């Protein structure tokens, strides 16, 4: 088969399928789908902010209401930690490639960078999310003291540790199953594109 034949076969598709579009409706539909797209992004951002905003007054109330110094300190630190978590997640999102007008290679570089940042976020989750959260929750529950509360504290403590361990392994699994294969695929494509350049 000669090479021109490949081009001819490839371009024979208009004889087999046709795109039809109604111009007047198309513009209206495209604009309305874009509005939905922006609404989706706004909704996601709103949910994150609501979670932080709801959590903050609750722990601010605890800090004000509970007489125990350790609980007060833990509540204030939880508020700051919540703010830190949101900033950390949002700053990782900034690396996401958004422009469809980049070249393919630029897109691959940006995707690799984005996945690396996200992977690093999950790899280090023990230090910036799980350990601070567990420490602060222990401080919070230990605030009223331990006398006469040991069985209850043991149960709550075990629950906190269990949640921490599950969170840790779920994130490790996500890194292994989702991020590493994607990073490897992107690296492979970059190698294909860069080789013999």
């Amino acid at each position, binding site marked *: *088969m000669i*090479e021109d034949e*490949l*081009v001819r*076969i*490839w*371009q*024979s*598709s*208009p*004889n*087999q*399928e*046709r*795109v*039809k*579009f*109604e*111009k007047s*409706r*198309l*513009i*209206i*539909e*495209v*604009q309305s*789908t*874009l509005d*939905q*797209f922006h609404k989706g992004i706004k909704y996601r951002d709103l949910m994150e902010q609501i979670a932080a905003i709801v959590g903050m007054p609750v722990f601010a109330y605890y800090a004000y209401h509970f007489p125990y110094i350790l609980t007060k300190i833990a509540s204030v630190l939880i508020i700051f930690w919540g703010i830190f978590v949101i900033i950390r997640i949002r700053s990782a999102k900034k690396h996401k490639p958004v*422009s*469809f*007008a*980049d*070249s*393919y*290679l*630029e*897109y691959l570089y940006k995707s690799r960078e984005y996945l690396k940042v996200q992977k690093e976020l999950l790899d280090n989750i023990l230090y910036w999310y799980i350990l601070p959260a567990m420490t602060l929750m222990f401080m919070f529950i230990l605030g009223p003291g331990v006398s006469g509360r040991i069985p209850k504290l043991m149960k709550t403590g075990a629950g906190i540790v269990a949640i921490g361990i599950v969170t840790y392994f779920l994130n490790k699994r996500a890194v292994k199953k989702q991020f590493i294969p994607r990073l490897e695929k992107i690296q*492979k*494509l970059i190698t*294909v*594109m*860069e*080789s*013999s*350049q």
Partner: protein
Amino acid sequence: MDQDLENTFLRALEQNQQKLLRICSVYAEDADEKKDLFQEAVINIWRAMPSFEKKASLSTWMFRITINVCLRLQSREAKKRDRFRKMDSITIENIKHEETSHEDHERLIKLRNCIKKLNDADRAVISLYLEELPYKEISEITGVTENHVAVMVKRIKEKLLNCIIERS
């Protein structure tokens, strides 16, 4: 968006729709996904229209967006089909087989299947080559040098020819 831009968009879409659809076809598993990818490309072209800088031709720029949309959305979104935005204003019609040669149809299916077996990067380069884009424009879209595009095209064509012969 002003009327001039809207008209430019519609005109360019009319001129390039078949080419864009062909590119989508090598990234789609079935006809529905092809339509979804095509619609998504149309939406993103429209969205990016105000930022078009005329450094490249409008059709090259449309190819670039379409390739990027297909590469980003193919497998990831196939599992979440409902995420695609549905538009009734675009339809894709299959023409009855009597109007087209059966042999041509078979060959096209064979070629598309062989292209689908390539990796994403090779698929992007060969689909642009088959649209008869010059190496310079393929280089602008993919971000690799013209020389490298030429090397890639040569290698991919060999792969494709072998694949088609094997299937014949």
